[in-house]
């Protein structure tokens, strides 16, 4: 096991290099560069960038260098100084920008995740065990709704109703008075009072799909003989389900952990934008769209690292949950 983990950790190094390089290429692949997007953005408000300034921006950001050189400069900065470079757009060190948003991102993403799993798994199991009962139909209808309504439309409607009909303060994660206040109990309370709306919106569609998947997998496991054995022992239906078929039905979910962590960062961009959430996703998106290379590159690197860690964790869990799977 330890050997396995060590081997995997070692493998992360070349993987990170490969992904970061490819990401760098990919980010640059779309036409134009940061300066083009910058000019285009300003032009949207009919604002004009001085011609000389634009040329000079390019030069300053080294955008005229060949890509390989840009990449090595960047990687060297990371390796030698832990310097992830400067965001073109904000002229701030990339690491500051990323970490600033990570805390809230994690709070939001984890709450969503917990809400999703906590709601979806039991319902999925219920739907499978009581297949074609009223309850199953009810949840099925709910899941269809959750699947068919784009989450940001839902966000928009809820926000509209809350803001216009009830005069509620929506969007963002804090009330104005706490926005820049230091952390306190009151601020936490304020955060949680804002958190429910995004959590609901973000959770709806993933909950829905999770329910469907869980139901399907449970239905496969329920008639297995070992379930009957457990039943013959006199186990209560709930404990029985939790312990036996559920553990096997979880297998696909454990596999998904590989991209759960990175999804915490990059998932649900559009909702975050509509709801105005100060999370990492909009920043990442903006960086990608604007070809703010170092910022986007650092994000991709982070996502890659998280993917690798996630897939390691998920592999270990797979083997723990199902001893028939051996780690090699």
């Amino acid at each position: 096991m330890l050997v396995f983990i060590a081997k995997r950790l070692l493998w992360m190094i070349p993987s990170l290099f490969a992904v970061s390089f490819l990401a760098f290429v990919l980010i640059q692949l779309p036409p134009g560069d940061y300066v083009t997007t910058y000019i285009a953005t300003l032009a949207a408000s009919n604002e004009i960038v001085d011609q000389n300034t634009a040329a000079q921006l390019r030069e300053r950001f080294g955008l005229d260098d060949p890509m390989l050189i840009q990449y090595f400069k960047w990687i060297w900065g990371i390796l030698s100084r832990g310097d992830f470079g400067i965001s073109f757009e904000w002229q701030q060190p990339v690491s500051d920008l990323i970490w600033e948003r990570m805390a809230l991102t994690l709070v939001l993403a984890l709450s969503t995740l917990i809400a999703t799993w906590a709601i979806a798994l039991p319902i999925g199991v219920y739907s499978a065990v009581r297949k074609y009962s009223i309850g199953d139909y009810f949840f099925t209808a709910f899941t269809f709704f959750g699947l068919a309504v784009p989450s940001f439309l839902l966000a928009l409607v809820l926000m509209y109703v809350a803001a216009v009909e009830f005069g509620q303060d929506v969007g963002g994660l804090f009330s104005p008075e706490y926005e820049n206040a230091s952390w306190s109990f009151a601020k936490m309370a304020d955060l949680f009072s804002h958190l429910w709306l995004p959590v609901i919106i973000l959770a709806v569609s993933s909950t829905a799909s999770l329910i469907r998947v869980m139901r399907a997998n449970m239905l496969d496991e329920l008639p297995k003989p070992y379930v009957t054995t457990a039943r013959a022992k006199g186990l209560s239906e709930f404990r029985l389900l939790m312990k036996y078929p559920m553990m096997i039905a979880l297998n696909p979910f454990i596999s998904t952990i590989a991209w759960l962590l990175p999804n915490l960062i990059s998932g649900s961009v559009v909702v975050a934008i509509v709801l105005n959430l100060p999370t990492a996703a909009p920043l990442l998106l903006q960086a990608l769209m604007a070809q703010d290379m170092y910022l986007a590159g650092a994000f991709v690197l982070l996502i890659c690292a998280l993917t690798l860690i996630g897939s390691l964790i998920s592999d270990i869990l797979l083997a723990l949950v199902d001893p028939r799977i051996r780690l090699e």
Partner: protein
Amino acid sequence: MADIAVTNIPPDRAAVASQWQLIWWAFRRHRLAMVALVVTLLMYIVALVPGFFAINDPYLQNARATFHPPQKVHLIDTQNGFSFGPHYYPMKLTRDPETLAAIFKEDTTKRVDIQFFGRGYEYSVFGLFNTNIHLIASPDKTTPLLLFGADRLGRDVFSRTVQGSQVSLSIGLLGVFLSLMLGIVIGGISGYYGGRIDFFMQRLIDFVLSLPTIPIWLAMAAALPQDWPATLQYMMITIILSLTGWAQLARVVRGRFLSLRTEEFVAAARLDGVREGRIIFRHMLPSFASHIIASITLAVPAMILAETSLSFLGLGLQPPTISWGVLLREAQNIRSIATAPWLFMPGCAVVVAVMALNLLGDGLRDAADPYNK
């Protein structure tokens, strides 16, 4: 052998059902699934010849019908004497000069009768021939029948929804299908062999999982020839993106296969001389079919809706192309929520499609389940 041969076997002993027949029979007994199948088929018929089901030219803009609310269809006319038959009353438009808001009022003095198999705008059937016969038509071209109302340019939302089904029910599914195939094959191989092969495939999957897709979209949009029609471009992009989209399914399949491959029946299949491909697809995959069916039925709405988020970012399909995603995206603003909720009718189409596909999936799953009663 006479001593153990089972006697009294009916003469046609081979007259038992094949597995497909069994599945079909089981499926037929699933009433909801049958309904879903019919709905799905209907949707695809509509998608094949949207022109026939559309009432008005979906691209036709109409200054007098901007934000026209859905028209009421009446059956009994009491205004102009008493008569029977589906008809509607044209709406009169006045515009508030200050706010520019449109105000529509039903003009009950005029009555327009709805025709079935009447004539309307000309459309082409499979690009083979042109016709102007429509399922529903209105004889009055100046005040068109707007079942779902009209959008900001006075275009008929109903006809646009019908037209949009074509793209939404085809292109996205191609991507779903491709990533599905790739996911199963790669995940299956990785999980079936395990060991070193698995190790390297997993590194590949990790790699693919960490690639950002937005720049690929952007680059693709630029690289594809601009004189291609938008839908073709979109199709190419979905195809290419499905080259990265398989990774998730592949991982899930692989996780399950890692444990499935230790099952005795897999060993038995190997002893039967079954080749790897067949073991993976014919012997192991069915045990995972429920999950895969669920994933497909989930991926389809996701794909339809992905368009909306993509066009939100200025990627993917864009108007003037009509698809449900584009229509929803166009509707997604405070303006529509506040003043023109009928613009969300394409959303209902999505709901129906999702429902039909999922119920269909459920039915299939149940029918293929040997333990199903």
